[in-house]
C-alpha cells in the first residue's frame, strides 16, 4: 500500500511538473519580449530627447527642460497629452482602415527589433534569414500609409498617402541591394553571423571599410524610408496642411509619431550591426585579463553581455548624431528630385556595388 501511494505521488508530481514546464516555457518566451519592449520604449525616450536637444543646439536655443530632469521625459509627456485628446473620425471615412493604418506602421517597425543582436546570444530571434526579415517586414509599412490616406475621406490625404508610399517603395530596392551586398560578404543573412564576421581585426574589420559606397547608399535610403529630412515631403506636406496625417488626432497621430522614431532607431541599430561592427569593442588586439575571460565564469559572462549591449547602444547613439544634424543642414527635396534620386541614381549605383562586391569575392576565392 505504501509503495502504491508513493508511486502514485511520484506520477502526480511528474504530471504537475510537466504542466509547470509548459507554463515555464511560455513565461520564458514572454520575459525577453517584455524586456525588449521596455528597452525600446526607453530608447525612444532617449532618441526623442536627443533629437530635441541637438536641434535646439543647432538652432541656438534651449531644448525641453521642464518634463523630468533635463527634459528627458518630454516624449512621455507628449504621449500622455495625446492620449487625452479627442479621437476624431472623419465622416464617411473608412473607420477600420483609418484605425488600422497607423497600427500597421507601428507593428511592422516594431517587429524588426527581434533580429537585432545586442550580444552573442542576446538576440530575440536568431533566425537564419536575419536582416531579410527586416527588409521584408518594413515593406509592409507603405500599406499602412495607403490605408491612412484612403480612409481619411480627404483628397489631400489620399494624394499624400500615395506620394508617401511611392517614396517608401522607391528607396526599398537600393536598401535591399546594399543589405544583399553585406550578406554576400558575410556568407549569411543572420545578424549574429554578420557581426561575427566583422570581429577579426577590431576597428579595421568593420564592413564600413569594405563597403563604403554601400554605406552611403544605405544611409540615404534609410533616411528616405524613415521620411526624415531631406526626404520628409510627407511631413512637409503636413506643414502645408495636407498629407496622410491630416485627419488624425489624438493617439493615432501619436502612433505615427512613435512609428517615425521607431523606424529611425531600428535603422540606426542596423547601421551599427551591418557596418559598424555590432557589439565588438573594435579596439584591435585588446587583451582582456583572465578575470574577464568570457564563458568561463558567470561574472565574466554577465560582464561580457553588458559590455556588448553598452557598446551597441553607444555606437548607435553616436551614429544618430548624423541623421539628426542632417535634418537641420540639408534642404528638402522635391518629389520628382526624390524619385529621380531613388530610381536613376541609387538603383544603378547599388547594382554596381553588388557586382563589384561579387567580383572581389570571386577574386579572393
Amino acid at each position, binding site marked *: 500500500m505504501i509503495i502504491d501511494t508513493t508511486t502514485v505521488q511520484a506520477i502526480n508530481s511528474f504530471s504537475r511538473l510537466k504542466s509547470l514546464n509548459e507554463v515555464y516555457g511560455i513565461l520564458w518566451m*514572454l520575459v*525577453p*519580449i*517584455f524586456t*525588449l*519592449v521596455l528597452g525600446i520604449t526607453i530608447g525612444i525616450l532617449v532618441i526623442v530627447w536627443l533629437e530635441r536637444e541637438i536641434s535646439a543646439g543647432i538652432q541656438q536655443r534651449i531644448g525641453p527642460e521642464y518634463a523630468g530632469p533635463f527634459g528627458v521625459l518630454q516624449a512621455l509627456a507628449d504621449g500622455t497629452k*495625446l*492620449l*487625452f485628446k*479627442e*479621437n*476624431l473620425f*472623419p*465622416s464617411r471615412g473608412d473607420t477600420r482602415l483609418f484605425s488600422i493604418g497607423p*497600427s500597421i506602421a*507601428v*507593428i511592422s517597425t*516594431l*517587429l524588426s527589433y*527581434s533580429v537585432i543582436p545586442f550580444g552573442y546570444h542576446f538576440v*530575440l*530571434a*536568431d*533566425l537564419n534569414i536575419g536582416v*531579410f526579415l527586416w527588409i521584408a517586414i518594413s515593406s509592409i509599412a507603405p500599406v499602412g500609409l495607403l490605408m491612412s490616406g484612403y480612409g*481619411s*475621406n*480627404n*483628397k*489631400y490625404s489620399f*494624394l499624400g498617402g500615395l506620394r508617401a*508610399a*511611392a517614396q517608401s*517603395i522607391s528607396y*526599398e*530596392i537600393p536598401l*535591399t*541591394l546594399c543589405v*544583399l*551586398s553585406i*550578406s*554576400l560578404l558575410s*556568407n*549569411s*543573412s543572420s545578424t549574429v553571423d554578420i557581426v561575427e564576421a566583422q570581429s577579426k581585426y577590431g576597428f579595421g574589420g568593420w564592413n564600413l571599410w569594405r563597403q563604403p559606397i554601400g554605406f552611403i547608399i544605405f544611409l540615404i535610403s534609410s533616411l528616405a524610408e524613415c521620411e526624415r529630412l531631406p526626404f520628409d515631403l510627407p511631413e512637409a506636406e503636413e506643414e502645408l*496642411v495636407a498629407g496622410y496625417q491630416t*485627419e488624425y488626432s*489624438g*493617439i493615432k497621430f*501619436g*502612433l505615427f509619431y512613435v512609428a517615425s522614431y521607431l523606424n529611425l532607431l531600428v535603422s540606426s541599430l542596423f547601421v551599427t550591426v551591418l557596418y559598424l561592427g555590432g557589439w565588438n569593442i573594435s579596439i584591435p588586439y585588446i587583451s582582456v585579463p583572465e578575470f574577464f575571460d568570457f564563458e568561463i565564469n558567470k561574472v565574466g559572462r554577465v560582464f561580457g553581455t553588458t559590455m556588448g549591449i553598452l557598446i551597441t547602444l553607444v555606437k548607435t547613439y553616436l551614429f544618430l548624431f548624423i541623421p539628426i544634424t542632417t535634418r537641420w543642414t540639408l534642404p528638402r527635396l522635391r518629389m*520628382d528630385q526624390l*524619385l*529621380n534620386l531613388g530610381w*536613376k541614381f541609387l538603383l544603378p549605383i547599388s547594382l554596381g556595388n*553588388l*557586382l563589384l562586391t*561579387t567580383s572581389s*569575392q*570571386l577574386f579572393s576565392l
Partner: protein
Amino acid sequence: MFLLYEYDIFWAFLIISSVIPILAFLISGLLSPIRKGPEKLSSYESGIEPMGDAWLQFRIRYYMFALVFVVFDVETVFLYPWAMSFDVLGVPVFIEALIFVLILIVGLVYAWRKGALEWS
C-alpha cells in the same frame, strides 16, 4: 509553419506588438472627451468647404512606379539565395547571375527611356 520552432518567439512578439496599438486605442477611448459637432466631422480643405467627392482618379504614374518596384523587388528576392551560397557556387553561377541582372538592367533602361520613371 508550426514546425519551425525558431519562429515561435517571433509569433509571440507579433501578438504582443499588435496588443500595443489596441491598448493605446482602449486607453484613449476611456480618457478622451467626445464632443461631436458638425464642423469637426467635415474633412480639411485649407479652411474652405470641401468641394466634390473625396475619392478622385489618381494619375497613372503612381501605378508605373509600383509596377517597376514589383519587378525589381522580385529580382532582389531571387538574388538572395544566390548571394547566400555564393562561396560554394563558383564562377559559372556568377556568370548566370550576371546575365540575370543584365537582363533586368536592360528592363530598367527601357522603363527609363519610355518615361515610366518620370514624375511629370
